[in-house]
């Protein structure tokens, strides 16, 4: 395969766009009501720890992607088995993201449009981008993600007249339990999903900066998500924040004078688009490496087809999806985001120590 290189700033924008992706429409911290801001802070700490683990793994295996790392760490058979599990996990996450965006568009802007049509439209754009390669994905992110950041700052300031500081109180009304539960949820979604970047880190042109740039990106997106949650809480209040399916969208509709509904949806599509593109690239590349193929591009089309089919199949309704993500997803994601990466890290460190001796 051709050696593709991306710059540190491009990686930072991809990570920011990817992490903001689905979190742009669903606020995983909203269950903690007026303590949602605290959930964001705790989840950010968790996210920084997870990304430190991923970047350390990548630095211990320079030039290797997740599939190669798994084979090198667990051996041929166990490594291949875990690689299949990871490929499945990425396919499932991509289907979840696709379904989230289909449901969002269908319930807000395109009420009469079939969700299958929206999925096909979104996947055609993603498919084209992935076929053009990682460099194009990086350049597109570099171009579009700053627009997201500018919009968030603009919205934060534009809604300032609607803020009610009393919405922060009472602090920890229900104790730490709901806060910790929501923090675990938010650490797994969206921060823990950055495990997929183990497929992209080897392509960074300056590998010594992987740790620094990843941590900086997570810190930036953590602050962005904190500002979004604070804005929603101050505008909507704890009751509405908890009840709303799409609190981010609802709070922007409270803006006085102007209606920027479509503009907001476009921004949400940028974030979601980056996430879908990165996952589609990682899956296609992962399958190609698993079967030792020279090129991943012919696999992008069938992978897209699988993801569209799966996204329609996995849930009967939006309520099912929300309930599943709140109750099952954290337990499902922890082995992929924490347990297996920690095992890889421990085994890699032990092997390195053994070699040094």
């Amino acid at each position: 395969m051709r050696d593709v290189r991306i710059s540190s700033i491009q990686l930072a924008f991809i990570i920011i766009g990817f992490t903001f992706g689905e979190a742009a429409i669903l606020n995983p911290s909203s269950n903690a009501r007026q303590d949602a801001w605290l959930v964001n802070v705790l989840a950010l700490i968790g996210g920084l720890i997870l990304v430190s683990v991923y970047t350390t793994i990548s630095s211990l295996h320079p030039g290797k992607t997740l599939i190669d790392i798994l084979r090198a760490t667990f051996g041929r058979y166990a490594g291949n088995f875990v690689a299949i599990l990871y490929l499945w996990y990425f396919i499932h996450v991509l289907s979840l993201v696709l379904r989230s965006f289909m449901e969002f568009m269908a319930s807000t802007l395109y009420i009469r449009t079939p969700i299958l049509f929206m999925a096909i439209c979104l996947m055609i754009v993603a498919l084209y981008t992935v076929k053009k390669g990682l460099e194009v994905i990086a350049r597109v992110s570099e171009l579009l993600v700053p627009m997201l950041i500018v919009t968030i700052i603009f919205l934060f300031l534009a809604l300032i007249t609607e803020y009610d500081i009393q919405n922060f109180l009472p602090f920890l009304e229900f104790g730490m339990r709901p806060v910790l539960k929501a923090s675990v949820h938010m650490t797994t979604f969206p921060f823990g999903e950055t495990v997929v970047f183990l497929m992209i880190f080897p392509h960074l042109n300056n590998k010594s900066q992987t740790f620094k740039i990843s941590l900086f990106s997570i810190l930036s997106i953590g602050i962005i998500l904190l500002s979004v949650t604070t804005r929603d809480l101050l505008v909507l209040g704890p009751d509405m924040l908890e009840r709303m399916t799409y609190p981010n969208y609802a709070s922007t509709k409270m803006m006085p004078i102007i209606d920027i509904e479509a503009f907001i949806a476009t921004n949400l599509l940028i974030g979601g688009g980056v996430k879908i593109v990165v996952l589609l690239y990682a899956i296609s590349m992962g399958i190609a490496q698993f079967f030792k193929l020279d090129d991943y591009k012919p696999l992008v089309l069938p992978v897209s087809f699988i993801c569209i089919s799966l996204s329609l199949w996995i849930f009967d309704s939006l309520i099912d999806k929300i309930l599943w993500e709140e109750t099952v997803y954290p337990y499902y994601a922890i082995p992929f985001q924490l347990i297996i990466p920690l095992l890889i890290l421990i085994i890699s460190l032990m092997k390195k120590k053994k070699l040094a001796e």
Partner: protein
Amino acid sequence: MIILLISSFILITILGIPELLKINQKKKTTVIYLGLMSLGVIMSLIQALEISIMNPSEVIQSIVDYALKR
């Protein structure tokens, strides 16, 4: 619905043929390509025919519930 699915399967497969002809490992890639396409068709058929089997999310939920009970 089934006719629509089969025709879209044939159409998507045809769309991928020019790319498959350009690459080095033609045989291996074609087998994987068709395998993945078939998987997508099976998933679509399960929905189109409304075959009552657990979807992947329900399977994962059962596994998580079982693990938590243990």
